């Protein structure tokens, strides 16, 4: 019986999951060599995600989206059951927003290591083995970091097949990074404020509401994307919005009496 006939006999729901051998390469690529983020557009731009076994760098000024990409990378690494750690030099991590971005907090290891301790902490984590992604958030105040530290980080990442992701306001890793993604601000979006409880616009002259921002992503170092694009645009929207609370305890238990 011909293969085509056999394929026709299979239930339609199953046949969509079958990939002919000749299409395996173009379909899958080397998924084991990358750690995907939760942003498909960025993954496509990076060739599937952050490459394993090398140091990658993510740099951009304030409000350029680097922290949003960091959270998306952590979410992507943890989504598949892997392990990820964040070394936070400035204690800038926001657990509430990270959870909204899809980061399973219970499985994220967070280390606050200021200054030069950040790279040492990242080295220790990478050397432990088993981490898919170890991110080092250097922050705005970039300290002077010795070249030897980057070399050790790169060797550790190579040995353990870990993604070492360095996030900073400006490029720090230089030639020690195999991939450098440079971000720039493209725009900030403000919309009209809407009363969430009544679902109506308050009025046309109401104060504006931050809805999101857009970033321009350029590959400063690394392999050129397959489609030849030298940049891409990524949009981030506000997921957790501040709203006027009604003074209830956050766990929802309402007190018996209210103090004036």
């Amino acid at each position, binding site marked *: 019986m011909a293969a085509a006939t056999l394929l026709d006999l299979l239930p339609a729901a199953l046949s969509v999951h079958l990939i002919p051998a000749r299409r395996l390469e173009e379909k899958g690529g080397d998924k084991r060599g990358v750690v995907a983020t*939760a*942003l498909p557009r960025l993954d496509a731009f990076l060739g599937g995600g952050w490459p394993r076994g090398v140091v990658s760098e993510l740099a*951009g*000024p*304030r*409000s350029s*989206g*680097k*922290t*949003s990409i*960091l*959270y998306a990378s952590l979410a*992507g690494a*943890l*989504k*598949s*059951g*892997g392990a990820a750690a964040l070394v936070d030099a400035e*204690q*800038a*991590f*926001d*657990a*509430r*927003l990270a959870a909204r*971005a*899809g980061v399973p*907090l*219970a*499985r994220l*290891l*967070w*280390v606050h*290591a*200021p200054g030069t*301790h950040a790279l040492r*902490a990242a080295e220790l984590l990478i050397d432990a*083995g*088993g981490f898919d992604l170890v991110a080092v958030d250097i*922050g705005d105040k970039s300290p002077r970091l010795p070249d030897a530290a980057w070399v050790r980080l790169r060797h550790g990442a190579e040995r353990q097949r870990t993604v070492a992701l360095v996030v900073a306001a400006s490029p720090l890793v230089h030639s020690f990074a195999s991939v450098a993604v440079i971000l720039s*601000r493209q725009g*900030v979006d*403000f919309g009209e*404020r809407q009363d969430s409880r009544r679902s109506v616009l308050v009025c046309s002259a109401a104060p*504006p509401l*931050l809805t*999101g*921002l857009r970033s321009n992503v350029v590959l400063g170092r690394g392999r050129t994307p397959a489609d030849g694009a030298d940049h891409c645009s*990524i*949009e981030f*929207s506000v*997921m957790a919005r*501040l*709203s*006027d*609370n009604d*003074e209830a*305890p*956050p766990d929802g238990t309402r*007190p018996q009496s209210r103090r004036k």
Partner: protein
Amino acid sequence: MSSIACVHAPDIALQAVLRGLADVGERAGPCALAAGAGGRAPVLAVTAAAASVRPGMTVAQALAALPSLRVVTAGQPDVDAAAAALADLGLGFAPRVDTEPERVFFQAGDLGQLYPDLSAVAHAVRARAARLGLEVRVGIATSKGLARIACRTAEVAIVPPAPAAARAFLAPLPLAMLAPGPEISEALARWGLRTVGELASLRPEDVAVRMGAAGARLVRLARAQDDEAFLPQAPADAVEEGTELDYALDSLDPLVFVLRGLIDRALARLACRGLACAGLSLRLTVEPHSFEIREVPLQSPTREAGILLQLVRLALSRHAPSAPVTGMTILVFPARVRATQVDMFRPNGPAPDRLAATLARLSALVGPEHVGTPRVADTWREEVTALALPSLGAGEMHTVRGSSSDVGALAMRRFRPPQEVEVLMERNGPSAFRGKETVARILIAAGPYRISGEWWTGKAFHREYWDVHASDGAVYRMHQDGEKWFLDGYYD
């Protein structure tokens, strides 16, 4: 038939002192343990190298006989630690042990699956004791009393389990091996009895008429009919090691040097039981007569002395002793290293033991309060993030549902603590702000969002939040609390 092992550490007080000397890298040489200071103090025990000195001599006599003799005295913490180490040695082979001064008893009959015979068990006990700095003799028999006698006969002695064979084993031994009291010993000598076999030939009831119950028991023991109860007990919760110093220490480095020995010994004892250290409590005796306690918490159990030492150094450098230290005791809390089941279809994640060691190293590097798993705190105050103990074991991993979208979730970088700024207010809201690091005009201001709460805890707050697009291009979140303004962070 059950087999009871008796492990005897002779002259344990002297061995305790020698353990301490070995910790600081000193070779003891010929050494004698004195009951106190001064030349008239009697010598209690001597090492094999000091053969010309005998217990009972005064220190002056001993030094005259052997001028190179080192005379030491034992501190009670050292002796207690050595006794506890002996008990831990037994706990390395059995879950419960029976202890008495200088001896530990445990059930050895169940070890046949691990060792080819009882002799191999005895040699394994001696090897492990050597790692703890103890020199022991091991006797194995069907009862506690017989095992104790076997210990006296040789460094390793196994009494055959069959009654006739056991009696034959005991028969040629001198009566002193039964350790009779001085009165009974004298009486037996008057009767012309020299060996255990000769005593065993007497009828217990006849001996009981002349010597009482003690004599009858001695005859039953000589006939390998021991009725002494074996009463095993569960181990103590924590492992304790301590020492007294000859002179007070007032700087950190020598203190840590001494602590290294204590930690090594405590970890070796835990390793005997297959356990790791889950936390440590350090009690310092400081001048003139007071104590200070330092707690050293651990994120996860570890067996690495270097990591514990770093954490202790960190704790001592943060809260230095208020006075020179004259003694110290460490209390090590034991825990099992977590074992996890590896999943065939998911990434393995970090190995539990390596992760535990890494967490301990990170704790030593940045402090244990800066390592953990973040969680959303139960509060309306947005800047608060709580930390929980990390739990990244492979067995706990599960696939997380997460949406992949072309539009990402906008994150924020927090300033911790929030930066206080001066704000220029206009009719529609803030128009400019000035802080230590940032000065900017405000192009667009979205807000205010009023949040108040925690009046139920007595720490009430009332804030007005604004999202502002500043002239430096960044989008900040700021809030007014009372008269003051703060920058919470920026969207990024």
